[in-house]
């Protein structure tokens, strides 16, 4: 009993220590970077006022709406295209990399390594590198999004496969099923809802990324954002931002509906 109480006391001391250390780190780093919390908080009201007066789209910027929507459509299509094609490639690599469905160990390690490389190079870096070889066009944006999405989805799919289908894979192998019978009639039915869920997550992540990539490659909504930003036309910038937010929320809504349908 006494020992139990000691354990509780020890836990409390540990928690206090952890909190103290975190506080110390916060204060220390803000001193090092000359960042003042008081000043930061004090500037918030001013910022809100500036945003309200400058970023709310007026009648004049509304004339740009058809142009914004056209570019936004281009961005959505690019995002969906890169995500779906990347998902197909990722599925193959995930099947090779998963410990449930791997063909052999060397190929599993290879597949996970390749995915890791693609995943760990940020989308901005991909865009900047690819812009040199492909130039300022949609193809650059497509590949930049494709590579990062591919890297991320391989990992997400591997975890989905291992979680959802270990048991049914064992049963199908025991019946004498071939590899592809096991994959198409066992693994894919079991992991489909989770995979589709990841797919939608990546589509809406990619719409946001596509904005950034477009800024670098001179295509899509990102380019439009860049032009109007540089012209100091903040009202149109606000309009573009609002449009992006609406689309991302709409896609999240659709994804929830679809997920519930196929589950």
């Amino acid at each position: 009993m006494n020992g139990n109480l000691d354990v509780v006391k020890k836990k409390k001391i540990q928690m206090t220590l952890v909190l103290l250390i975190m506080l110390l780190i916060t204060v220390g780093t803000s001193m090092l970077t000359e960042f003042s919390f008081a000043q930061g908080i004090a500037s918030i009201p001013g910022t809100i006022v500036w945003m309200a007066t400058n970023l709310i789209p007026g009648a004049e910027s509304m004339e740009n709406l058809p142009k914004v929507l056209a570019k936004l459509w281009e961005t959505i299509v690019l995002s969906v295209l890169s995500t779906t094609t990347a998902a197909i490639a990722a599925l193959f690599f995930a099947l090779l990399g998963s410990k449930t469905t791997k063909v052999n160990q060397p190929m599993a390690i290879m597949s996970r390594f390749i995915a890791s490389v693609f995943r760990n190079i940020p989308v901005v870096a991909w865009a900047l590198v690819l812009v040199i070889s492909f130039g300022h066009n949609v193809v650059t944006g497509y590949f930049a999004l494709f590579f990062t999405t591919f890297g991320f989805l391989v990992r997400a799919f591997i975890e989905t496969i291992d979680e959802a289908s270990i048991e049914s894979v064992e049963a199908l192998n025991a019946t004498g099923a071939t590899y592809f019978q096991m994959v198409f009639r066992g693994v894919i039915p079991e992991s489909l809802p989770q995979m589709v869920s990841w797919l939608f997550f990546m589509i809406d992540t990619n719409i946001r990324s596509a904005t950034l990539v477009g800024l670098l490659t001179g295509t899509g909504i990102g380019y439009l954002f860049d032009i109007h930003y540089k012209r100091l036309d903040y009202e149109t910038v606000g309009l573009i931002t609002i449009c992006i937010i609406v689309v991302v929320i709409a896609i999240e809504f659709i994804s929830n509906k679809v997920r519930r349908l196929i589950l």
Partner: protein
Amino acid sequence: MPQVLTMERKDMTEYKTSENKGQQGETLLKVENLYKSYNRNTLVLQNVQMALKQGEFVSIIGPSGAGKSTLLRCINRMIDPTSGSILFDGVEMTTLNKADLRSQRAKIGMVFQHYNLVSRLSVFENVLHGRFGYKSTLQGVLSLFTEEEKKLALEILDKLGMKEFAYKRCDQLSGGQKQRVGIARALVQQPKLLLCDEPIASLDPNSSKVIMDHLKDISETMGITVLVNLHQVDVALKYSDRIIGLNKGSIVYEGIPENLSNMAIRDIYGSEIEDLILE
């Protein structure tokens, strides 16, 4: 419907006699000098010898970690044994290549503790999965099953009292029902041997009895050899033709249930009979 069932049974016996392996008492499976180790220090199975006859109902009992599941999975090579020989239906299993292993596995049904069904597919689809061993990859992937195969699946489901659930999704079934689907999937393979890995360990007493009765019936009326891993000594005593006791990877008892003395149980479980819960 019962007439169709008896026909089905007759068909299966005919099929066996035509291959001249139908006589009761013929050895179906022979395991010799079987060893398995996952690392250098521990032997999971050591020097296992056993022989199963056609239509026999044999239980393997033993404490957790004795190697029961490993032994079962070595037989259909879900786990590769370290050394030894496994002769099933006249074919040496340990040296088979992929394609031959596949056609041997088709003749061995397997039933699992956690049922291992594809839970998002229907009962009927899951049962038909048992035919994969006989189909080409494309036929399997596209779910192209013949009329006879579908009839067979429905007959087996009917026999197990699951016909009305055929189009239900497996994740809507109870444990006992899932296990009956698991057995149906194994039977649709028209196997010669049924391996059951703790088939009733996750079930309540009522469902357990239903499952064990079905397994016993399968060995008696269809002439299929049934090898069951069990935790429950009393269940093994009630249903088995023969009991094999496994402890630390070695067979420490082998014989008919009537001869399983308290001494033998102590050898298997390493404890006095009074210390075991036996009901």
